[in-house]
């Protein structure tokens, strides 16, 4: 039981460090952390689908865009404040997720991927061409910051940091609780073996629709944060290459875990920033690294760290137990 307490200890330590950061770093690094925070919420929502329910979705950037545009339109032309517009943005994205989910969730693996990619692009192209509502390619500018509450002035990056930090922590916690719950078990069962899950008494259709709608709402919420934070949005930031990069963040970090996508998001947002000064070769290194990561670190950064830890633990265990139980099980299993 001690590693549980150790785990909670590290989490609290990390949170304390995170809450102190704004006082130590300049606002460029804070801006990067804010971007990471927003993307953590988006990748957490995507992880619900890819990591836990095993459905590879390319629509999440479209739902992220719906959330961003709903909140932007409400706050600019309808005069709503951020605090009333972000729940609406999440609901609108969730409802759209439900509507898209109905036809889409019938498909499996690569068909599901391509159909969600199609819907993602349909959302982007509709935003692009619906000029009088969304401003078309010009986008929407002068999106106001959230009105000040609790003495925080959100025009300052450092204060907005806390709003994003709290939202990210809440979302990650929510995902953790959901996965621990009964529905979470059903989602994991669907990922592991969808047909068999049907026979264990899981209404796979209902669970998938629930997961997709929920993750759509979370993506919408991330979108509303993104719009208010950047105060300018345009269809150019919701393209297919964006949905590819958030998918990479989830998978390279280690999908189907809570910490994996967070590591992946941090790694894939910090890496291009760190490589900024090597600007000519930056994208070449980025592409090359992706290929190497997929080939050698298949369960992602987290998998790498875990195997590193397990290797250390394994050595210590071996000399303790003469006939390790684990070895018996492995010896027993003559399957492939």
């Amino acid at each position, binding site marked *: 039981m001690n590693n549980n307490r150790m785990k909670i200890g590290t989490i609290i330590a990390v949170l304390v460090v995170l809450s102190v950061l704004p006082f130590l770093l*300049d606002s*460029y690094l804070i801006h*990067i952390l804010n971007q990471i925070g927003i993307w953590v919420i988006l990748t957490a929502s995507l992880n619900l689908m890819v990591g836990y329910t095993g459905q590879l979705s390319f629509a999440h950037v479209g739902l992220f865009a719906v959330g961003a545009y709903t909140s932007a339109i409400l706050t600019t032309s309808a005069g709503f404040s951020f605090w009333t517009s972000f729940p609406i943005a999440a609901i609108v994205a969730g409802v759209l997720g439900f509507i898209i989910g109905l036809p889409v969730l019938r498909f499996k693996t690569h068909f599901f991927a391509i159909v969600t990619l199609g819907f993602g692009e349909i959302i982007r192209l509709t935003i*692009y061409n619906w000029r009088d509502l969304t401003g078309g*390619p010009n986008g929407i500018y002068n999106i106001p910051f959230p009105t000040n509450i609790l003495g925080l002035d959100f025009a300052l990056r450092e204060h907005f940091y806390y709003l994003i930090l709290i939202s990210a922590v809440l979302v990650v916690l929510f995902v953790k609780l959901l996965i621990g719950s009964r529905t979470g078990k059903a989602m994991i069962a669907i990922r592991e073996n969808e047909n068999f899950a049907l026979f264990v008494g899981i209404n796979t259709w209902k669970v998938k629709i629930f997961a997709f709608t929920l993750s759509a709402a979370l993506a919408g919420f991330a979108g509303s944060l993104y719009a208010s934070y950047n105060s300018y949005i345009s269809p150019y*930031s919701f393209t297919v290459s964006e949905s590819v990069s958030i998918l990479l963040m989830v998978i390279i970090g280690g999908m189907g875990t809570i910490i994996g996508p967070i590591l992946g998001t941090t790694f894939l947002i910090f*890496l291009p*920033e760190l490589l*900024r000064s090597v600007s000519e070769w930056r994208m070449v290194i980025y592409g090359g690294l992706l290929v190497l990561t997929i080939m050698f670190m298949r369960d992602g950064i987290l998998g790498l760290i875990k195997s590193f830890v397990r290797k250390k633990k394994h050595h210590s265990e071996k000399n303790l137990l003469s006939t390790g139980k684990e070895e018996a099980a492995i010896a027993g299993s003559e399957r492939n």
Partner: protein
Amino acid sequence: MKKVKLGLVIFVLSVFAALAGCSKGSEETSGKSGGSVETVEIGVVLATSGPIAQTGTWVLDGHKAAEKEINDNGGFKVGDKTYKVKIVQYDSEGRAESATAATEKLINQDKVPVILGTSISSETAAMIPIAQRAKTPLITFVAASDILTAQGASFFSQAAPANKNYVEAGTKTMKDMEMKNIAFIYVDDAWGQSYGKLYPPAMEEKGLKIVATEKFAPEQKEFMTMLNKVKAKNPDGIVLAAETELAVPLLKQLHEVMPDVKIMESGGSIPEELIKVAPDAVNGLVTLSRAGAVTPEITKFQELFAKSNSYKANSFNYSGYDGIHFIVDAMQRAGTVTDKEKINKAIRDAKYKGLIGTYSFNEKGENSLVGNRAIIKDGKVIYQTVNEPLPK
């Protein structure tokens, strides 16, 4: 186990390479105060990768030519001190997230006094709120969409010839080319759409009839159906609005469908580039252009540019060159290289004669650069202002 060890090595290697890259960056800024002549860092954000990397690279080459020229003759004087120019450029990859991150890095880590904005309107629009909040002057010499000045940011100035100023020159050129029934074809992006809005009323006013209007998607390459549809309306003139990368396939196919129709392009394409890639399809084409008649300064710049670049200078290089000199002039008039507010005021009050015209701004940051035109005749480009008659 072997694989995991290898994976570990790669992972460590990549982080190490990244950190090395980062440290190289920061150690540079610390060298600021050393040496007899101080260095002034000018922030530049341009898309040098991604789909529209071409324009960004041209502008950057223009910036570098000016930087080399200033530093070769000992830097520039402000008050009693002389300064060398150092360009700190970050690639925005054609994505708003990358552009905003680069802007934050320039303002907060490199602490540059001024930033030259990007070649793409949607990126620049995302950077304006950041520059405004950090009270750092941001100026673009390329992004021409009118949404940039519509944000009303006091620290943003648009030194690129805005579409509004070009409409005048455009309608006059259409008249000069004796076009009656015009087919108007424009790219459906932020830049193209502002023409889509501005041209029709202006053309109607001048009695020019629009027989067909077509818009096409930025990544589109196949235009045959659209051109045949336009051909059915048998226009005697075609007005295009398309960046160079998109204009080439369009012009090649236009040459197939309507070989001898008069064509005018409203300033998105570079004539020299069109000749190089599609010589026979563009003969007789007139494009609006930033650069007017070839002034002595332009010839001097072309010689300077030829020394360090393998291709012939074009008007995006001119704008890049003007950009650095304009900032240096503004700093000299402001009498400071660090006080951002004073520099911004000097920028807004500028009356600087550059290669492509005189830069001056109104209170909204819009400039008064007037469009010129360039005519492609038998493989050569003739630049002129719109008042001169078209060469026969």
